[in-house]
């Protein structure tokens, strides 16, 4: 039963996310690139709208609810201020500016039949694998 709720809940959460990505047009690399080349600032509204909802829930849900509806506790996201966070963000920026694709839309875009995005998907998997290799080497030293 727990598995079924897990499946349905995450599927629905992901589907709302994907529907929003399509509704806003962010699944299209062109829309992203028009934002990045300062021709259309609509993407600020996508992030702004998403944060406006999420910040309220992230801040208030742990205060108002003892625990999540179907789990034991609320996760807290902690990001360290270190070299990896900052250099990684810069590398990610290079890729985002080149392709107009970030992880969410790379996955979601396939649902719109944009099979060309498979190139980006393969690239992201390869990049994530190389990062795993690199992190393993760095740990050994």
């Amino acid at each position, binding site marked *: 039963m727990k598995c079924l709720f*897990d*499946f349905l809940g*995450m*599927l629905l959460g*992901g589907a709302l*996310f*994907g*529907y*929003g*990505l*399509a509704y806003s047009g962010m699944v299209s*690399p062109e829309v992203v*690139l*028009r934002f990045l*080349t300062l021709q*259309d*600032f*609509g*993407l600020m*509204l996508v*992030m702004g*709208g*998403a944060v406006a909802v*999420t910040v309220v829930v*992230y801040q208030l849900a742990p205060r108002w609810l003892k*625990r*999540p509806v179907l789990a034991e*506790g609320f996760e807290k*996201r902690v*990001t360290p*201020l270190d070299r*990896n*966070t900052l*250099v990684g*963000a*810069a590398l*990610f*920026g290079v*890729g985002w500016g080149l*392709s*107009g694709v*970030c*992880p*969410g839309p790379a996955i*979601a875009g396939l*649902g719109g*039949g*944009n099979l060309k*995005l498979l*190139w*980006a998907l*393969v*690239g*992201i*998997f390869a*990049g*994530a694998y*190389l*990062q*795993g290799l690199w992190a393993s080497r760095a740990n050994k030293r």
Partner: protein
Amino acid sequence: MLQFLFPSGWAPFLMGGLLIGVGVSLMFICFGRVVGMSSFFSSTLSWASGLPYFQQPSLRGTRVWRLWCALGLVLGVLAWQLWQGPGSALSTDVSAERLLIGGLFVGFGARMSNGCTSGHGICGLSSLSGPSALAVLIFMGVAMITANAMVWFTGVRP
């Protein structure tokens, strides 16, 4: 001013953003999960690679529900496509090389930074995280420089 900032309208962008927020919030209220999308790639690699890095609990232990979420993403776009979409498959004029090489940087960078547009952008900012806000400023700035440099090099405006 509105016309200058948003030449193709503002409502669909805002509406799409709100829907994304509802999806992310739902996963938090139901499961307490803070869900960014880049982790999906590393957690899914835990099926293919025995490397200890990919087998760490934060990736291996989350790989099943991250897969369901990714499946949801695909179905969400499919649903939009069927109800309100253009009736033909989406496509892009960005070249395969740019998608592939850009993807490499996106995958490496987002995982190194432990966050992407959704991880640092939506989840990080909503967690009121200073380092995530800094990461957002950095990747947006670098992406703008890169995208404009590509226009300059190729002469093609997206």
